[in-house]
Every structure is written in structure tokens, then in C-alpha cells.
């Protein structure tokens, strides 16, 4: 048992760290540090800098631009991104649509979409949730009827993150409402957001931010070539994505950065044993989660198996830690130095409540662990 990175891993980390220090634009970093809203241009700018270095999609096969790093290197890379305070890499194209295309897409689909995703030419969003189907995704109602080589799509998606930035949306749609098992009537479709009949309505969240949207489909014509995998196999595609190796579910690097910042600006509150103990307990949980994450990674590296329900545990604990940090930051906001920053910390507390809800609520994650890991 050796909890330290090997010499090679340390060298790799130092290389990543040095490059980030030299290439993350100062103005972007400061915006992130102030917890300000990032524009589409901000996000794409950073995406393209990484693409220029060849590091925007480490997990992809080398032929499409992947780096060939092993899981530990990929973890180190993502942790360093989080820790340095880089703008987020929006996952819908890079980490969701692309893996699906790589696994299920036709050669034509890969050639058409993957390079544009890599270069940040297309901005993607994800059309899963609907007003009536959140946790129970298989109950989705958006209809796609095939006629004359096209699908005609009607329905509504909701909580669609950054749909107002997106050029493309990948959707789960119901192509066969008659199939006995609900999952079997679902297909995976790529839709150009500029197609007539697609409209986007903002949903403002309680921190006042515009991040998510409703997306309406009103007789939207989608070429049949935009179907991924076979018709009726959309659920297989969605499930594949759930089991896909994601390295940063626990957001360790990001949380380490928040913890360090909190300690920095709340130093006055650290004389208060109540506040300090809460902070210490979060630090302990975060340390534990980092090791737990590495233990899972290590197991994955040895077994070559996808992580399975382990990811659910990282999601639960990681989001609890993020929320605890956000709450402590709000409590320490009086020490924050400026009123604007204090207000941003308040909004951030509000915003972070979503983390235990989105991407499969923590209740759903507990159901998954109960069923898959514990056999209940």
C-alpha cells in the first residue's frame, strides 16, 4: 500500500500543473475566482486552448485526439484542472455525446461530429429530463415519428443545461409508444438546435442565474441519419453512458480548491471552535473521499472493469462535500472582504443546492447502490 503517486505520476502532474500555470488566462481565472457567470465565449475560449494543446479529450481514442493516458493520469489531469480553478469543460459534447458516437455511431457520424466537438465548433446540450419524467427517465414522452427518411419530433425537455448556448442537442425520444417494456420504445437522436420548430425558454434558478432551460420541439424534422445506434435502442445507449468511466465525479480537485480558498478568507472565523470543527470535518471527509476515489480507481485499473455503482458513492459524498463547503463559505461571507464577493458566496450557496438533485438525484444514487452493490 502506497498512497503516494509514483515518480512518473508526480512528473506527469508537475507537467500538467506547469502548463496550466502558463496557459490559463488570468482574466478567466479571476472570473472563476470571483464566482462570476461564465459566458459561452469564456467556456469556448478555454476549450480551444486545451484543444490546441491536444488535451481537451484525454479519454478519447488516440486516432480522434485522445492522449492515451491511463486512468490515473486522467484523474490527475482532471484534478489539476479543478484545483487550478480553470473554467469547466462542458461535458455534453466531450464526455457524453462523443463516447456514445465512439461506441455506437456510424463512421459518417464520427467523422461529422467528433472533430467539431474536439475543436469546440459545436456546443452540445443534453435532452433527457422532461416535465413528467425526471428520476423515472424511462417514462419520457417526447415523440419521434419516422416518415420519409426523417423523424418528426414533438414534445418538451426541461432542466436542459446551457441549451441557450447549444448548437446541437442529443435527445432520448420515444419512437415506439406501443412497446410493452417502456425502455424498448426509446431512441437516441441528434438534433440541430437551428432546425425550425426548436425553441428554448429560460428557467431561472433561485440564485438568479440562467443556466437551464426548457426546450420545445414542435414538428421538428430530423434526418434519419441522425439516429444513433438502432431505433428502439436508446435506452442501451443511455445506460452505456451511465457506466462510462468518469474520473471526476467526486470533484475532488475543485473541492480542494474551495477548501483552500475558504481557509484563506475565513481565517478570522477559525478562532471560533464551532466553525473550525465544521471546517475540519469537511476537510476530513474530503481527504477520505480522495482516498476512496483513488482506491476505486486503483481497483478499476487492475480489473479493467467499469466503475459501476462506485460512481454513485462518489456522487453522493462529493456533492455533500461541495454543499457543506458552500454553506461554510456563506457563513464566513462576512470575512470575505467585499460586499460583492459576500453576495456571490450567498448565491453560490443557493446554486449548489442543485448538486444533490442533478445528474441523478442522491436518492436515485442510493437506490442504485442498494440494488447494484448491496443486492437489496
Amino acid at each position, binding site marked *: 500500500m502506497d498512497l503516494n503517486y509514483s515518480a512518473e505520476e508526480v512528473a506527469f502532474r508537475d507537467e500538467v500543473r506547469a502548463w496550466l500555470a502558463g496557459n490559463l488566462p488570468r482574466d478567466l481565472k479571476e472570473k472563476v475566482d470571483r464566482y462570476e457567470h461564465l459566458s459561452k465565449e469564456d467556456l469556448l475560449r478555454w476549450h480551444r486552448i486545451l484543444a490546441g494543446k491536444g488535451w481537451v479529450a484525454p479519454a478519447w481514442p488516440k486516432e480522434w485526439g485522445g492522449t492515451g493516458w491511463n486512468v490515473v493520469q486522467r484523474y490527475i489531469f482532471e484534478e489539476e484542472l479543478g484545483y487550478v480553478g480553470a473554467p469547466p469543460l462542458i461535458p455534453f459534447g466531450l464526455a457524453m455525446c462523443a463516447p456514445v458516437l465512439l461506441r455506437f455511431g456510424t463512421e459518417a457520424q464520427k467523422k461529422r461530429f467528433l472533430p467539431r466537438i474536439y475543436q469546440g465548433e459545436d456546443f452540445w446540450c443534453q435532452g433527457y429530463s422532461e416535465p*413528467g419524467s425526471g428520476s423515472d427517465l424511462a417514462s419520457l414522452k417526447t415523440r419521434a415519428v419516422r416518415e420519409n427518411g426523417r423523424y418528426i419530433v414533438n414534445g418538451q425537455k426541461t432542466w436542459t443545461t446551457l441549451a441557450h448556448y447549444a448548437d446541437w442537442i442529443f435527445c432520448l425520444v420515444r419512437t415506439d409508444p406501443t412497446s410493452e417494456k417502456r425502455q424498448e420504445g426509446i431512441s437516441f437522436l441528434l438534433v440541430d438546435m437551428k432546425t425550425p420548430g426548436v425553441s428554448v425558454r429560460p428557467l431561472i434558478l433561485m440564485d438568479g442565474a440562467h443556466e437551464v432551460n426548457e426546450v420545445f420541439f414542435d414538428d421538428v424534422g430530423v434526418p434519419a441519419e441522425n439516429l444513433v445506434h438502432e431505433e428502439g435502442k436508446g435506452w442501451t445507449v443511455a445506460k452505456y453512458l451511465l457506466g462510462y468511466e468518469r474520473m471526476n465525479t467526486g470533484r475532488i480537485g475543485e473541492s480542494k480548491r474551495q477548501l483552500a480558498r475558504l481557509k484563506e478568507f475565513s481565517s478570522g472565523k477559525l478562532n471560533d471552535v464551532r466553525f473550525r470543527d465544521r471546517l475540519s470535518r469537511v476537510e476530513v471527509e474530503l481527504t477520505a473521499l480522495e482516498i476512496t476515489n483513488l482506491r476505486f480507481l486503483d481497483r478499476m485499473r487492475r480489473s479493467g472493469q467499469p466503475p459501476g455503482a462506485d460512481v454513485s458513492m462518489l456522487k453522493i459524498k462529493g456533492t455533500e462535500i461541495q454543499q457543506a463547503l458552500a454553506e461554510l463559505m456563506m457563513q464566513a461571507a462576512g470575512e470575505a472582504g467585499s460586499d460583492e464577493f459576500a453576495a456571490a458566496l450567498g*448565491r453560490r450557496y443557493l446554486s449548489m443546492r442543485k448538486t444533490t*438533485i442533478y445528474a441523478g438525484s442522491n436518492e436515485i444514487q442510493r437506490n442504485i447502490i442498494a440494488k447494484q452493490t448491496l443486492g437489496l
Partner: protein
Amino acid sequence: MNFDYNEEQQLLADSVRRFLQKDYDFEARRKILASPEGWSARVWSQLAQMGLTGLPFSPDYGGFGGGAVDLMGVMEAFGEALVVEPYLATLMGAHLVARAGSAEQKRAILPAVVEGRMKLAFAHTERKQGEKLGVVGAPIADKLVVSSGSRLFLADRADLKMKPYRTMDNMVAADLSFSRDRAEPMPGADQAVAETVDFATALVCAEAVGAMKFACDTTLEYLKTRKQFGVPIGTFQALQHRMVDMVISYEQARSMACLACARVDSAANAAERSRAVSAAKIKIADSARHIGQEAVQLHGGMGMSEELKLSHSFRRLTVAAQQFGDADHHLARFASL
């Protein structure tokens, strides 16, 4: 022993609740928030007509001589409806004038407050000498009571330099600079601030309890109507048990709000009063956090939406938990008394 409101208190609470249901539903409130002022003069005058602005003040000035218990039902209703008009700020200002003002100051201010012609605010928390922070109601108050050292002053709003803003829970507020030069000293002070802050803290407890009630009611309703996997999500036992814990948390918080209001009216001494208020605020802060967070979580994405009243209740509960001292502050005070 009697844990119900008396007939007058119940009638008043009911009529306030009816008024708010009719004239202050979520849509009406949304319009008030969207207005540049951030509050409604029409609503204010209706509150005054119902006698609310005069409730806790002496009949000598046109008031009804009521206490915190008389106000409790009103504050619960305000908390349910999330009233943003600076009612508590005005009560605090007038409460201080009634205790620490000169006869002349009382005559000039209290009848005007009672009749709804004047709004007040109390500037107390400082960053540094003369710089007051987070003064709720300040931008729209006619006059402000301002603490300075151990003394109290009356100031016209016009004489104060302000940076107005909206708080997380949509109240109008300001940071402001104060100097004694252009302000009128108030003769008393001493115990008045402690009394008024305890009084206001007890009322915030009651208001928070109202917000908790709404959060519990609306979450229960959501559990019964929202369907997933073909059944209402309220059939899932894990959610049932969490809902039960929210309701218990609410009942316990309400009991403590009762205690705080009763002791503010009739404690044998200041220590007994403050100890009860701190005990209440500890429980209210814990319950506000617990119920607020759970209500949002059980609503899923809907709970995060600006378009749903619950997200506003969450913000009110978040602020109420910290207002006049968070749980840590009151734990320290409770143990010291």
C-alpha cells in the same frame, strides 16, 4: 395553561391570512418584487388599516397595547406569504422610540407609525464605527433609529448616505454611513436595544415558523401529486420518513416560537427573556436549515426554480436562520445566561 391564541388573536391572524391569500398570492408578490421600489404602498396601507402597524404600541398613541404573543399569528401568516414590506423594521424602530425616545419624539413618530404614515428602520450592526450594514427597510424608511456606541439617535433617511440593495430574501435594505452631527439623540437607551432585539428575534422566530409551515405543506402536497415510476413519490418510504422528520422539526420550532413570544411579554427578568429567545433561535435556525434544505431536495429540480414559491421560502429561511444571530451566536448566549 393555554396554547391557543385567544379569540382576538385568532380573528386577527385569520383576517391577515385571508387578506394575504387574496391580495398577496405568489403572482401579486412577484409583481411587487419586479417593481423598482420592491414594496407596495397599497399593501402597507391595508396592513395599517387592519391595525397591524399599531398593534404593539400604547393606546396613548392610537395603538392597541399588544405584545409579542398578539403578533405571533400575524408573523406566522407573514412568513407563509413571504411578505416583503418592512413591517418588522418599522416595528423595531417604533419599539425603540417607545422605550428610549423623548416624549416629543414619541408624539412625533408613534401616531404616524400606527396610522401607517411613517416607516422606520433600525441601523445597528456595524462593520466599523459609523458604517452600518444590512439595514433592512432603510432605503424606504422615513426615519431611522441608529445606534452609536451605547446611544441611540433618530435620523432622517435623507440625511444618510446609503448603498441600497436587495437581500437574498428579496427585502429592500442598505448599507449606510452615519454621523451624529445631523441626528437627533434619543434620551434613553440602555436596556431598550436588548429588549427590542429580543422582541424582534421572537417575531422572526414566528415568521420563520410560518415559512416552515409553507415549506412543509407544499412539499407534502408535492409528494402526493408528483408521480414517478407510475406512483406518487410520496409512496416511497425513504421520502415519507424524511417528510415526517420535517413535520416534527416544524412542530418543535413552533413550540419554541411560542415560548420566545410568551417570555418576551412576561419574563420575570431580562435574563429569563433572553435565555428563552436564544433557545428559540437555536431551534429555529436548525429547523429552518433542515426544513428548507429538505423541502428543496424533495422537490427535485422544481425546488431550485425561481418560478416556484418554495425557492423564495428557502431563501427567507436561509436568511431567517442567521437574522439577529445564527445558532452558534445563540448557543454561546444561551450558555452564558
